[in-house]
């Protein structure tokens, strides 16, 4: 496996350092403990947003640090959640006196480490709220699992909650908006190939030349079901049907449609998938009011995509449209 790396164990740190060097107007990168902080943090009187998780999902999360979105991102090793002291350092760096909202993807490691960090921060007198993102419909029965995973819908939560914080909402209100977005967001993904974690050097699972894995997460873990490859239109329908049925999204609903690449699928194919998704949604009477297509929550070099729907109302749409200036998402600013 050919990789653009130096030493496998340095990938996460060197990638973060590169991001800091490329975007000095947006980010300040701290090492030991590692975190990426908005260059003008702390912003006095504004609720600060901190997210994080394993590396390997770039641009999530450091690519979303900047005005209108996150105040800090806390990357762990590849596919490994960050540690509590990292999160605590980020919280201390961004707390502008209005409290800190932790946005956490629902993976056991992330939840446990952020939980310990929240306890430490609260003990230091910082007002902390935590919102757990669990938009992945592939996990059906939460009783017998660790619950639904947080996947590409996390980007929508970070953007919209970030806009709420930027307009001056207090901590409870920003957390409330974030929970509303989580409640209205559903995602389903597919892998065409597995991904290769740098330190293991071998694919995380084996897929045949004509096989796909439906219902994958974003860490190279196998998904819900393996089946033969089908054309893009049919594949997108396989992803969208459970997404639509779950909330459910109904005739007359207005949505934001995110077609997210897993890292190794060309943008041209993502647009093929987007076109297919529009066909399905038109047939159901669901109106796409906003769209996002690209690699926003990746799983290293996995080929494949995920499809996310967020049910919009006027407020969520306005918050989505509000100015944002980050390395990976920028408009109006």
């Amino acid at each position, binding site marked *: 496996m050919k990789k653009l790396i130096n030493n496998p164990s340095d990938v996460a740190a060197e990638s973060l350092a590169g991001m800091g060097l490329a975007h000095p107007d947006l980010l300040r990168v701290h090492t030991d*403990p590692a975190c990426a902080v908005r260059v003008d943090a702390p912003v006095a009187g504004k609720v600060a947003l901190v997210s994080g998780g*394993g590396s390997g999902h770039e641009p999530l999360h450091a690519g979303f640090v900047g005005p209108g979105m996150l105040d800090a991102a806390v990357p*762990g*090793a*590849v*596919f*490994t*959640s*960050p*540690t*509590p*002291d990292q999160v605590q350092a980020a919280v201390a760096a961004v707390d502008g006196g209005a409290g800190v909202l932790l946005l956490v993807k629902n*993976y*056991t*490691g992330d939840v*446990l*480490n952020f*939980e*310990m960090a929240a306890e430490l921060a609260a003990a230091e007198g910082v007002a902390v709220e935590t919102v757990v993102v669990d938009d992945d419909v*592939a*996990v059906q029965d939460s009783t*017998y*699992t*660790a619950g639904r*995973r947080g996947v590409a819908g996390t980007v929508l939560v970070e953007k919209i909650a970030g806009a709420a914080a930027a307009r001056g909402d207090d901590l409870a209100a920003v957390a409330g908006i974030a929970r509303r977005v989580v409640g209205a967001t559903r995602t389903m993904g597919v892998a065409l190939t597995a991904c290769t*974690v740098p*330190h*293991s050097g*071998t694919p*995380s699972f084996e897929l045949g030349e004509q096989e796909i894995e439906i219902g994958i*997460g974003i*860490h*190279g*873990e*196998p*998904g*819900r079901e393996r089946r033969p490859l089908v054309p893009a239109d049919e594949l997108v329908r396989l992803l969208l049907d459970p997404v639509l049925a779950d909330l459910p999204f109904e005739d007359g609903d207005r949505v934001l449609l995110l077609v997210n690449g897993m890292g190794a699928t060309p943008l041209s194919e993502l647009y093929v998938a987007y076109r297919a998704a529009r066909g399905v949604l038109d047939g159901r009477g669901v109106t796409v009011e906003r769209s996002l297509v690209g690699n926003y929550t990746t799983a290293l070099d996995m080929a494949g995509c995920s499809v996310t729907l967020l049910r919009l109302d006027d407020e969520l749409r306005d918050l989505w449209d509000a100015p944002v200036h980050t390395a990976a998402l920028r408009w109006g600013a």
Partner: protein
Amino acid sequence: MTDVYDTAATVSAVRAAAAMIAGHKAELTRLDQAIGDGDHGENLARGFHAVLVKLESAAPATPADALKLVATTLISTVGGASGPLYGTAFLRASTALAGAAELTPELVAAALAAARDGVVARGKAEPGDKTMVDALGPAAEAARAAADGGGGVREVLAAAADAAARGSEATVPLQARKGRASYLGERSVGHVDPGSRSTAYLLASFAAGATGAADDSDRS
């Protein structure tokens, strides 16, 4: 034969545990690739390497101090679920040992029970969920039984290590209900839970430490 398990013995057991994890890094990663995300060996090895580095400059005053150093180091270096879970386990065990200068059978049983309770509280896993609780739970029970039966520190730790190894093997037919393996559903059946395996290795290291300490005291 006396069982002496003092601070020095505890530190040497921690070093042995670090060597044990380093030696089994590839195996733990392979187990985790089967039903998780393939980082357990790498993460735990990184954490215990950091423990060894800290031990070069730190001089724990009690067995509890040594375990606390392990706990805080793992919490800040491992990440994943195993960082907070092992960190919590070692921290609770350390608290249970309080200021004792050496381990007693009663303290070992209490420390393992506290470690198990801490892991259950933090991770919310129950027995049979195919997690490290399936090794740590039986270990705590075996330690309690051995201590109640009048066993020395050596016997209590050996009983715990044996129970953990058996408990880990017994995770093979289980379907995971917690952690990342739970997303596999039935496909998690037929594999050892990696966290239960590393728990068994750690307890085996502590049991071996007890043997070594007893041997040393025999020679003195």
